[in-house]
């Protein structure tokens, strides 16, 4: 028996070793080093001096940092709730269909989700092109003249938010569809027999039963969009990035364009704290779901 558990332990160590090594090397270690680096004035590559909390003091009075916090929050506001609402609407529409028509329509809604971000960027850059873009046919009647969406600061975030919803919504749609499928059809049949109208069926049956999935989608989207970088970076290329800065982009700029590794790590710690804060919230929500 003793020998048995010894070999079991040996096998376990051999099995977890590759994972643990990569994990410590690419995850635990960089996380610890990030905190350490944020207390120095080190460049990206090379040693720096210990500066205590100087970077953090600088962070709090750094205008661009607060612009990045504001833009990130604004972006979250523009994407999370509208995106989830759109996904629920689409899922409700798709779920009433069946057979090949359902697969076709779901594919049309889902396909953007699997595209690389640069492809999404190229597609929408062409669509919104100020000279030749088809979207100008929609813009011109409202504004009176063609608009360069990602070079006009007030248009920038809503534009990128719209594209992000288009791009990432497939995931939420799938979750809602799975959730809708899990509602037993007997409940609907009973509601119909009781004379419920379409509206009543939605507000009294579908909505309460789909609420847990809604919360799940909202929290997943929230955490995802706090980490926004790719689309904002691509559309801001060549523009006034300071005005449209988001948090991850500021980390990138400080580290890789200004060679300020220490300060970049400080911004990273701030992002870290924000995301972990919201994740703890998400975990609580998920646990509450699990307890039901």
């Amino acid at each position: 028996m003793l020998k048995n558990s010894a070999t079991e332990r040996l096998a376990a160590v051999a099995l977890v070793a590759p994972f643990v090594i990569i994990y410590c090397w690419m995850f635990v270690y960089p996380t610890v080093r990030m905190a350490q680096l944020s207390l120095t004035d080190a460049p990206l590559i090379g040693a720096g001096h210990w500066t205590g909390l100087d970077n953090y003091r600088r962070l709090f009075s750094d205008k661009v940092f607060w612009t990045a916090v504001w833009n990130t929050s604004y972006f979250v506001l523009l994407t999370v709730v509208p995106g989830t609402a759109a996904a629920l609407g689409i899922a409700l529409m798709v779920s009433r269909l069946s057979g090949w028509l359902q697969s076709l329509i779901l594919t049309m809604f889902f396909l953007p989700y699997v595209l690389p971000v640069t492809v999404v960027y190229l597609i929408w850059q062409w669509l919104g092109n100020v000279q030749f873009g088809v979207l100008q046919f929609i813009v011109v009647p409202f504004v009176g003249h063609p608009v360069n969406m990602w070079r006009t600061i007030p248009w920038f975030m809503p534009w990128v938010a719209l594209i992000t919803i288009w791009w990432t919504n497939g995931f939420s749609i799938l979750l809602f569809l799975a959730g809708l499928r899990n509602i037993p059809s007997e409940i609907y049949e009973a509601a119909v027999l009781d004379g419920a109208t379409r509206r009543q069926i939605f507000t009294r049956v579908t909505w309460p039963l789909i609420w847990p999935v809604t919360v799940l989608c909202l929290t997943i989207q929230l955490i995802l969009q706090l980490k926004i970088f790719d689309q904002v970076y691509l559309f801001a290329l060549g523009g006034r990035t300071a005005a449209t800065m988001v948090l991850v982009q500021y980390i990138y700029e400080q580290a890789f364009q200004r060679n300020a590794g220490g300060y970049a790590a400080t911004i990273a710690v701030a992002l870290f704290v924000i995301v972990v804060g919201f994740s703890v919230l998400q975990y609580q929500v998920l646990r509450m779901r699990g307890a039901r």
Partner: protein
Amino acid sequence: MIAPAIAPQGRRWGTINLGGALLTALTLICACVWFFPIYWALVTSFRTDDESIKSFSLLPEHPTLDSYLYIIAHSKLPIFYLNSTIVSLAVTAITLVMSICAAYAISQLEFPGRRLLWWTILASFMIPVPALIVNHFIIIASVNLINTYAGIVLPLLIAPVTVIVYKQFFDSLPREFREAAVMDGANEFQLLFRVFLPMNWGITAALGIITFIGAWNNFLWPFLAAQDETMMTVTVGIRAVQDTFGVAYARLLAGAVLAGLPVSLAYLLFQRRVTQALTLSAGIKG
């Protein structure tokens, strides 16, 4: 008794449901609007350069493959393809094997630190990977792996979700399997790869496809780690094509179509698996 017209699924009652038909039509219109950007990119990529900036017709007036041929011949796209394939396959293979082994040990074996490891994995779910880019770069640079495949692959191997999904799968299998196989003198590796894993290849297929798509699409890290054009993945490199070609829109979009093609095909061919993987990773039973 009840007017069938108000039934949400009117077809069941065999009546023609006007409201339902209208809703279906509306759904179809929404789907077409949603899909239009992709359609428009496709159409543009088959136009001549001249036509692309003049014509708004729904079909190319003189369909041509010139843009595709040009971009394959005059850009580094073929090299980007090779790089993406190598990186994505490596990430997928290593992530799966690592996760399977770790999840099996955590689920089925007793060893010191098991609970600690599991909690670390669960907690790591919360850590924003983009916050780690600075230190990833420092680590990868310190071992001289910037601009190498290994350097691009390593930070992409963090996949707590894959381990969590596999652990839940192994947990769901009856304990008797293990006991019976151990009696027969099987060792843990045989047990894992001959008994446990083959029980449901579907999960491995699903997670494999989604890991591949994720690796192919990753932008931020490959963008930092591949500084030389010959090391860029498709997702990073296709943007560089823009700088070379300037305002040749048909060519740019042909490049975009080619860049998105492998992942789109992976999705279209394995739709069910992709759906399964995504719902599993969110903890919903599909």
